[in-house]
């Protein structure tokens, strides 16, 4: 059977997956793969099909067609009429609600997956304590699971998911119920744990910041289809289309049209307001592109007298955010959002020049493509 899976495929292989939810087509034939030890994230707005995809990999949802292969084992195949039940897939999952069993102790919760596998008592104890140590909850082992705070439940859910050394761990928005500070701390811990244990993980979130911070690669989903797959940096710097540019981080989107090549090997883009911008087209030019995206953090502000200005504008509003200052700059082509370090101060009403590297001005593919 393993011969059916070609060698160049990943550890997790999902191909042409179609999932109906009742009569609604939730996932419209998506394909992706994850390498062993990779941390892959499914990112998208709510209702885009990301959780449904994750749940069908876990075996909790039955797809309509396609194929799911993990470590060479075919877990679901529409054509082959294969659907391995959840308990025999060898994957593990952290639920959004944590799903901590309130009638058991912390120890019993973490030991569950080990006891199901009928491991000897000492082995269970060793593995549970090790897992609890990894999430720094050793001292809670005999505590009743119903007496835990949200953050503690989150850690126990994590310990339980990794205790039986699964091949793959699936995460269904595990941090969405935590407050912002705790969420930040847990991101770091998750990333540490992930690289320490070398587990292949598939992570679902609607929080783009979280996705950027903790993933090796991100899959951007939108209404049941994949918009773009790439590393966080790749997706942030080179969004494929307007949806990705808008959904990941924030972006200044300017309408206009391509006006031929530039001298540095890029393209020239004429905005509707009349500015001529140097830009790049990482995904080629079809001729129907009508928008470029520039990240607010990649735009520099200078005095108008200094040279190298690409656009001219007036500071309309300055907002102090602590870690950065956000400027709203009125330009010919529209209002631009610019984020600068808190040390770069321009007064409201002053004229400024906007500069950026051509590689940071990305031509977006038309949405239909």
């Amino acid at each position, binding site marked *: *059977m393993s011969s059916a899976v070609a060698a160049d495929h990943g550890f997790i292989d999902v191909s042409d997956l179609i999932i109906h939810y009742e009569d609604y087509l939730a996932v419209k034939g998506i394909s992706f793969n994850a390498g062993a030890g990779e941390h892959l994230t499914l990112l998208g707005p709510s209702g885009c099909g990301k959780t449904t995809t994750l749940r069908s990999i*876990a*075996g*909790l949802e039955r797809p309509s067609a396609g194929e799911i292969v993990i470590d060479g084992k*075919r877990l679901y*195949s529409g054509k*082959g*009429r*294969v*659907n*391995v*039940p*959840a*308990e*025999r*897939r*060898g*994957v*593990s*999952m952290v*639920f*959004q*609600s944590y*799903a901590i*069993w*309130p*009638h058991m102790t912390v120890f019993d919760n973490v030991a*569950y*997956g080990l006891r*199901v*596998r009928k491991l000897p008592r000492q082995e269970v104890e060793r593995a549970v304590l090790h897992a609890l140590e990894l999430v720094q909850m050793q001292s809670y082992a005999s505590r*009743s*699971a*119903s*007496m835990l705070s949200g953050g503690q439940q989150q850690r126990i859910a994590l310990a*339980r998911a990794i205790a*039986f050394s699964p091949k793959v761990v*699936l995460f269904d928005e595990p941090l969405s119920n935590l407050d912002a500070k705790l969420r930040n701390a847990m991101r770091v811990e998750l990333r540490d744990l992930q690289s320490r244990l070398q587990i292949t993980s598939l992570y679902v979130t609607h929080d783009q910041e979280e996705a950027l911070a903790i993933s090796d690669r991100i899959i951007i989903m939108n209404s049941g289809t994949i918009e773009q797959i790439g590393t966080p940096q790749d997706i942030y710097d080179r969004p494929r289309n307007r949806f990705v540019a808008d959904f990941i981080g924030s972006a200044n989107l300017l309408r206009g049209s391509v006006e031929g090549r530039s001298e540095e090997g890029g393209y020239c883009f004429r905005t509707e307001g009349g500015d001529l911008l140097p830009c790049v087209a990482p995904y080629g030019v079809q001729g129907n592109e009508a928008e470029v995206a520039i990240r607010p953090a990649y735009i520099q502000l200078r005095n108008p007298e200094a040279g190298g200005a690409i656009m001219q504008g007036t500071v309309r509003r300055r907002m102090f955010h602590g870690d950065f200052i956000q400027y709203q700059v009125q330009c010919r082509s529209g209002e631009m959002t610019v984020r600068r370090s808190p040390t770069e101060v321009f007064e409201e009403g002053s004229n400024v020049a906007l500069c950026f590297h051509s590689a940071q001005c990305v031509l977006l593919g038309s949405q239909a493509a």
Partner: protein
Amino acid sequence: MNNKMAVSPIERRFGSQGLVVTIIVAVCVLLVIVPVVFLLLESLNTGDPQVFPPLSWGLANYSALVLDVRIVLNTLKVAVVATVFAVIIGFLLAWTLTRTNIPGQALLERLLEIPFYVTPLVGALAWSVLASPESGFINQIWRELGGGGALVNIYSAGGIGWVMAIFEGSVAFVMISAAMKAMDPALEEGSRVLGGGKLRTMARITLPLVLPGVLGAAVFVFAEMLGSFAAALVLGIPAHYYVITTAIWEMTLSYPPDYGRAAALGISLFAIMFAMLALYQRIISRNTFTTISGKAFRPRRMDMGRWRYALAGACWLYVTIAVFLPMIALVITSFQRFSTAILPQAEFTLANYLMAFNMESVTSAIKNSLNLGFWVASVGVFIMMLLVWIIYRSRLRGAGAIEYVVMFPQSVPRMVFGLALLWAWLHVPIPLYGTLWLLGLAYFTVLLPLGIRTLAGVVLQIDKSLEECARVCGASWWYQLRTVTFPLLKPGVLAAWLLIFVASVRELGVSIYLMGPNSKVIAPAIVSSWSSSGTELTSTIAVLQTVTVFIVVIVLSRVIQRLSRYGS
């Protein structure tokens, strides 16, 4: 090959689901709907009402209903008045206990559960002890104080309505307070902040927002009252004041029994009640404002200042009228040879209890009732749990049809269903009539809606991911049930068991038609004691029933509390 093994259990399950659903629907239809069909056929019998299947058919029984118009008017009069009072009681109690900061709120909320355990039958008996025109305690004291005649007469339309309003008041309270708890208190606080007083806030904000809930409760309570039997039986018959249910009872008791007319009257009552409950469904499903979500809100209460003592007093007054006064009257009576409220003249004795324990009909009735309660609750909860799982958790096609069938008995007035079962089992060639088996089957059938609704609440409040997580951890279906599902369900299932047990032990409407000389049960025994022997002995049996139920309730409540201590 390994693929084939993975597929088969699933394919098998999906392949057999049609069969499973068909069998369940067939059994439920047999239990639930067939008896009503028998009754419908009998109502069309224009020949000898005792011959079945009928020799001639017609609508004569229905046209004869014109003669009973007085009875229909009586029924409406009692039900309308009692509904109005029950809803007012329910609304005030619900508002006071969920929205104001009265002292002793938690205790009062517990006490308001008691009317359910006391039952309308015992309540009606107690009120006849308290307020019958001749020997009622209130009238005794009135005459002792120098008054003439009778101050109050419970044997009247007003008396029946009074007792019904008191007992349905606690039902209305439960329904309306559920609606109030589902309302975001910020909506009321908004009114207060903008300068609206407490009274204006209640009238302009609280009342309109919970109006669908109140209306729903009113319709539901009205439907219950149309089909209620106990109060009208105990308090109406001495005054020859008949409502539909007691009229049916008289028609089947008279000689020769006129089953045809009784059936026609019963089917008509069923039709009205069915319509009322359909209306109720419409009200609660359509008229919910978007501001009332399913979310539970942290209760925030208005400070009522000095008024909170007055409000608490009103709640205590209700509990006194509904629980304490009747129970005290019954207990005092049960220890006297001739009941009197003028305690210096009273002769206390244990004779009634000795007599009750020596009467085979009483002891066997108590034993049978407890036995039936235990088995109906135990077997019933198991079967109902399976049904709930099929209806709400499996994705079987046709699960909706099962739900519809099992909820059907709630739209049939209890004693009409008893008559239907009597008629059906008299003519089915299985010798079940007059046995405890038939009573058990009948209890199970009429308690299906109560059990299914309670257990559905238990199942639905368990987050699905708790079960899914077990599967992902590698647990088989059975292992997951054993280690996760069952332990989590245990407290809720025990509570449902208790509810069904109590409902079985207090059952009257169905039992009164189905018990035989060798299968006596307690509630009808109380009724027959009341019509054939004295108040004192009847009070004794009523006290015995109530005390038994209370002991079981208290013991099991403790167990449930301990089991669910791990929190919410």
